[in-house]
């Protein structure tokens, strides 16, 4: 396992999704929101040829100081799982820090999620929230809201601002509502 360096105050996030679910867009919005929150941020996809439905990953790094690390993320502090069917296929908790957190888009309770990890598991039914507000199962913004509440890493106002900027107009407002509902749904 990659040695963790004590001076490094960096927070690393890994997002698991399927091609087409907006895994990269989510990393991008979260990095922008962290940046708006006054931090240094870096967002990047797992580089390669993306195919619709195939398991993909994206990453976010957040730090108080400039981020120059160009290696991939191996020991995330946080993991986000956009699609719970990936849990059987991908080692979503791989390298996750023991005191970290894994946020899963699922209608189940955290204790019913079968992931082998010491880290805290948080669930939110982001798809249901997305369907309610958007009429489509595009759950990124809701999931980002849950992440914002569960981690405190990003300010809610920054997240809302970026969502409005990304989607604009009525769609933007609907996404902000989805984000806020998921924010409230998490302890």
């Amino acid at each position, binding site marked *: 396992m990659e040695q963790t360096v004590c001076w490094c105050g960096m927070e690393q996030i890994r997002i698991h999704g399927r091609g087409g679910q907006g895994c990269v867009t989510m990393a991008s919005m979260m990095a922008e929101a962290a940046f708006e929150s006054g931090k240094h*941020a*870096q*967002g990047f996809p797992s580089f390669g040829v993306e195919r619709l439905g195939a398991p993909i990953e994206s990453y976010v790094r957040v730090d108080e100081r400039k*981020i120059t*690390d160009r*290696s991939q993320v191996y020991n995330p502090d946080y993991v986000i799982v956009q699609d719970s069917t990936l849990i059987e296929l991908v080692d979503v908790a791989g390298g996750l820090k023991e005191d970290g957190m894994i946020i899963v888009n699922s209608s189940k309770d955290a204790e019913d999620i079968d992931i082998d990890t010491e880290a805290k598991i948080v669930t939110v039914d982001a798809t249901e929230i997305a369907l309610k507000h958007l009429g489509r199962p595009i759950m990124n913004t809701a999931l980002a809201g849950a992440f914002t509440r569960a981690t405190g890493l990003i300010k809610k106002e920054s997240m809302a601002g970026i969502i409005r900027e990304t989607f604009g107009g009525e769609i933007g407002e609907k996404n902000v509502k989805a984000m806020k509902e998921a924010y409230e749904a998490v302890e």
Partner: protein
Amino acid sequence: MAKMLTGYNAVAEAVKACNPDVIPAYPITPQTDIVERISEMVADGELTSEYVKVDSEFNAASTAIGASAAGARVFTATCSQGLKLMSEPLFSASGMRLPLVLAVANRSLSAPLSIWGDHTDTFAERDGGMIQFYAEDVQEAMDNIAIAYRVAEDNEISLPALSCLDGFILTHVQEGVEPFSEEELSGFLPQRDPIYTLDPSNPKTMGAYARPEHWTETRYTVHKAQLKAKDKIADAVEEFADIFGREYGLEHRGLIETYRAEDADVILVALGSICGTIRYIVDEYRKKGEKIGIVRPRVYRPFPVEELNKVLEDAEAIAVIEKDISLGYQGGLAIDIKSAMYSTGSRIPILNFIAGLAGRDVRKDNIRKMVEQTKEVRGKNPEDVGFENEERWDSLRTEILPGDDEL
């Protein structure tokens, strides 16, 4: 004002500020997003450049040459096989003394086919008379576009320039940058003012046939222009720092940048984005009281030999970590560093690590291993390091290699 931009959008913003007259474009991963974003800018009227959709990279470079010969400011972008296809006309561009600026999203070369990054594509253009800049981060990739235009279009230089950034690692990362506008750039980057242009009212030929009694002298002048470019880069980087406050190795004439190298016993030399990761390892060793540092050439051609010799001469061991292999004889950067150092009589052992080819991730642990190996050769003579160890392949998967009989 600082904003979050993806590398390809950031490069497109820098190109917009430089306001080229002509942009011939042909897509190739992972560069495509640069010219796609520029095509949007042109379509939306944000940029008035003539955007020429061409049928190949050969045509892109040829169109760029034609436009540059007519006096235009020209931009295009490519990488990998695309750069190979441009290579034939690009060698002519330098011989014809035509300034062009290309963004190269560094990517490996076939075969096997790979879309991921390394420096083998631009290193293969080493001898083509093109100035080569390498960026460590997205901001530098943006700034190098402006610096490249300023140097390339200087009438004493008048050469093509490659502004290189690591494919995917920098083109597809989103990070905070300070964009600049055409207006902000106006004092730094003047309108192009060429001495000779193709002009129907005053016809002339460019790039014509030269007999043996003339050819050598044309190549000599390209070489001299390359060497002169070092002074021009130094001036440009200094003036850029005055205007924008961003400094790129000012104490080394903008040709190289160092990180904690002043008193370092072990110095790691590398190009581009990998240096960002190495910084963390240097800090880690420094915290333990071990003197490790980085030397990062920002420019590969012209080769900053004087600046490198100066910062490397007091090291006890040097590691050249590079995303290139000159098949049949070591990595290209190491060959040049050894030539530079050993021609001064230096006997510092120089190890050459081949790493990060075709997008293989260079992890912090890999870099720690390279540092440890380099520490071991401190104080040894180069010949004692062993010929067979003259280049070391990082994280080579020996278990999937064929047996010795089959190699």
